[in-house]
């Protein structure tokens, strides 16, 4: 079944300056789609984290360059893709290092990075990462009405 999709694409310099611009675009798109305020705030975090990851990986390779953000707008969901064309990072290895801090974490265990991917996975309904030529993060958020019981936003998620 073909779903009608509207597609919006942005190309930005791989600089932290422009992460906020992506957030504003996301707000504009998502608020037309029937997402709740809380859901939009969650998606803003997820897309900022993905864009920030792309910026930081571009930096690490001294590449500067550009990041492409694509939005696939469907009646019942929003797909987002953030891509850069630098080095890929090892998703599986990174994923192993993910997770919330628990009471048993010592100060030494605290990593200052690494939470980004964890937040994306927690806040989005589907997340995929491609390791071929560059890092691509693909995320999906379903519009509430159609969803099963995965109603987790930051506001109503049970604390661990």
């Amino acid at each position, binding site marked *: 079944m073909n779903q009608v999709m509207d597609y919006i694409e942005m190309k930005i310099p791989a600089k*932290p300056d422009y992460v906020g611009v992506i957030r504003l675009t996301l707000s504009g798109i998502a608020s037309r789609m029937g997402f709740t305020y809380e859901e939009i705030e969650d998606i803003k975090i997820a897309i900022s*984290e993905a*864009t920030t990851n792309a910026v930081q990986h571009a930096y690490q390779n001294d590449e500067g360059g550009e990041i492409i953000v694509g939005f696939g707008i469907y009646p019942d969901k929003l797909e987002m893709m953030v891509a850069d064309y630098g080095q890929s990072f090892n998703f599986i290895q990174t994923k192993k290092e993910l997770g919330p801090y628990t009471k048993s*974490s010592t*100060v030494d265990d605290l990593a*200052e*990075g690494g939470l*980004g991917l964890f937040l994306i996975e927690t806040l989005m309904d589907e997340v995929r990462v491609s390791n071929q030529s560059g890092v691509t993060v693909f995320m999906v958020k379903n519009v509430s009405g159609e969803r099963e019981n995965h109603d987790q936003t930051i506001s109503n998620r049970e*604390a661990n």
Partner: protein
Amino acid sequence: MNLLIDKYHNNVDTVVKIAGEIDAFTAPQLRDELLPLAEGKNQSIVISLKDVSYLDSTGLGVFVGLFKQLKKNEGELKLVDLSDRLKRLFEITGLSNIITIATN
């Protein structure tokens, strides 16, 4: 997008008020302003997040870095005036188990 950071000292603590969005662009500025506060021994820092309109892992990383530095020098960190949303962000990342968040 501007991040506003206001600092003052009273007899007990250094009080910091942050207003604006904390993300990849503004987090380095926040780090540069906060880390020096943790250099002495027994520093007590209270940070109000009342007017923070956006926060993600880049900002959380700054608070974690500050916390670690303070702990090294036997200091203390307390975050206050968090919206329910910000509180939940600290909870789902587990950071509320480690950093003191004032409850209202």
